[in-house]
């Protein structure tokens, strides 16, 4: 039983890390960035590339953060900024992000092919340790710790820093934010950098956990992250985290207590029930109070 709780925490942490980047862009700019799974994949492959050059794993995660963050800023300049300037509806931005996503995935495939890849042998911690009869492995435990740390850091950044205040002002009303002297372009760039960087870290960590990064790895997360975000409350960062753990615990619980064929039906059914009770999601608020 304790085994399965540990599993649920791990899966939930990965869902949450992925969903955070998704949520951040949505909460500030009201757009669904469907290139997020591609940035996630880019993170895993950036770490792979770095480690193939001899960079240690911990540093490779940092490289993935910076590279993906920069890619996120470029993504905004190329795919979203021109549409924003012309007041295009949010759906256009979504389509534009699908385009970027396809291009990015294809570029990764051109370099690495569509097959499963592996990180250099011995580059990842493989030790398993035992706590009170529970077998835990170092890598997953580190990933859980790091994921929770990043979620707390992001929450702190949004709530209590100058940049966070700027982001919240931007989320409420871009024009008013500009009139108040906030450098809106810089705030938008920061949003994309953080969102994509987090996606990149999530990709690298997930790549480490499975040791089989491949070009389509982000796709499995898309639907789940999307559901988690809606159940948590569109645009709410703590909500997305809660939604992620709710889904992972739902999955594991149904696996333990029900026939396994019903697992997804149960887990998503649970999310559905939550939406019936709270149509705006667990922590969903009125639009003006977002972020």
């Amino acid at each position, binding site marked *: 039983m304790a*085994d*399965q709780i540990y*599993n*649920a925490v*791990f*899966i939930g942490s*990965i*869902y949450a890390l992925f969903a955070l980047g998704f949520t951040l862009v949505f909460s500030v700019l009201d757009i669904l960035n469907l290139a997020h799974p591609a940035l996630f994949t880019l993170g895993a492959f950036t770490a792979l590339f770095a480690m193939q050059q001899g960079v240690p794993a911990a540093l490779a995660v940092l490289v993935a953060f910076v590279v993906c963050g920069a890619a996120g800023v470029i993504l905004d300049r190329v795919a979203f900024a021109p549409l924003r300037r012309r007041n295009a509806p949010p759906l256009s931005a979504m389509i534009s992000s699908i385009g970027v996503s396809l291009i990015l995935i294809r570029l990764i*495939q051109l370099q690495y*092919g*569509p*097959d*499963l*890849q*592996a990180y250099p*042998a011995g580059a990842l911690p493989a030790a*398993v340790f035992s706590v009170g009869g529970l*077998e835990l*492995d170092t890598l997953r435990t580190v990933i859980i710790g790091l994921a929770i740390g990043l979620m707390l850091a992001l929450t702190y950044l949004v709530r209590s820093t100058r940049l966070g205040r700027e982001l919240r002002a931007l989320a409420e009303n871009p024009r008013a934010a500009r009139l108040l002297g906030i450098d809106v372009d810089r705030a938008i760039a920061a949003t994309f950098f953080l969102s994509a960087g987090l996606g990149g870290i999530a990709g690298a960590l*997930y790549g480490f*956990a*499975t*040791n*089989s990064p*491949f070009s389509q790895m982000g*796709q*499995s*997360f898309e*639907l*789940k992250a999307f559901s988690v975000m809606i159940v948590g409350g569109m645009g709410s960062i703590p909500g997305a985290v809660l939604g992620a753990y709710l889904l992972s615990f739902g*999955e*594991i619980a149904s*696996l*333990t207590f029900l*026939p*396994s*064929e019903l*697992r*997804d039906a149960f887990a998503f059914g649970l999310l559905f029930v939550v939406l019936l009770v709270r149509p705006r999601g667990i922590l969903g608020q009125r639009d003006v109070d977002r972020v």
Partner: protein
Amino acid sequence: MDKRIFGALGALAITLAACGGTATTSASGSPNATSTAAKPDVKVGVVISLTGVGNVYGPTQKNGVELAAQRINDAGGVSGAKLVLVIDDDQSTTDGGVTAFRKQTSQDRVVAILGPTLSNTAVAAHPVAQSAQTPVIAISNTGDGIVGKCDWGTCDYIFRASLGESTAIPQTVSIAKSKLNVKSVVLMYAQDDKFSSDGFAIFKKNLTSSGITIKKEIAFSKTDVDLSGPVTAALAESPDAIVDSSLAGPAIQVLKEVNKRKPGMLVIGGNGFNTPAIIASAGAAAEGAVSGAAWYLGNPDPVNKDFVTAYKAKYNADPDQFAAQAYSAVYILLDALKRTPTVTSVLHDKLRDQIELTTGVKTPLGEFSFNASHDVTQKVYVVQIKNGQFTLIN
């Protein structure tokens, strides 16, 4: 077109006269250059998934056929004529497959087609070749209804060179029982994946009939991002072995989770296990895994060793089963082409007859023949991963 046919007939007559009717393999080099130039090319169609979901397999298939064509041409081509591949992407869709088959049969007028990559595309595209009376060799379709009795009608122009799971799995189960002494298993599979759930049904039938107890069936999803939950649930049943019918991605996760929680536990799989990616990604956790295969990398057979060396030299990577099957199919076709009186598009029926007579062709898959229903006859290799290598155990 007519001129070309006469040209081909003429050229062939000259070759036949020169060689006394036997096909020759000349060493790669210049003496053949003039006669090669004189003969029209032999166009072979290849329809594979280079984009879309099937692009995990298509690219290595492309490598396999291109390597075969290059080596055949270096060795003198098809009785002196150059073998030219017409490769089209089916985009992993049925429409893409049908379009490519139409193009190749009516426009390119290929002598035969290899492909398409995925089974559901095959069921849609094969009728096009059948009605154009162009022989097809399926190189990666493992499902039912591809050859022999086809749901869509007569399919006497369709052959299959890829071993089906319904042939491989029974052998795996029998070895598991007799050699590995397995008495009980937990059966895991991805319920939303056709390959996995078909394999699951075949495993279930064979495990039951050979008296092995299935303690629990655990379904997961091909989109699952982590399988620690299902594996923990499987190990809780303490079986002798875990049977995992899934593609390579989930299989790697299953192997790693099993190894972490219960090192040494036997894991048995299907065709999804037969890829070097399993060993590269799962590392030590892949040790001991058992599966039934149409081909394995470490097969010491000289034809296979030669193929592996050439593939590595050209692509700087180990081949996989898809590459080996694609490569083999070109040689199987070559064998029939050499025996066919003429090789232009008009004599498809003669080529078909010769493909039917394929017996004991030496390929990286072993000695290869077609049975009466145009399906594979070859050895099934039950392999176990030992010291990071697929090793034969049957």
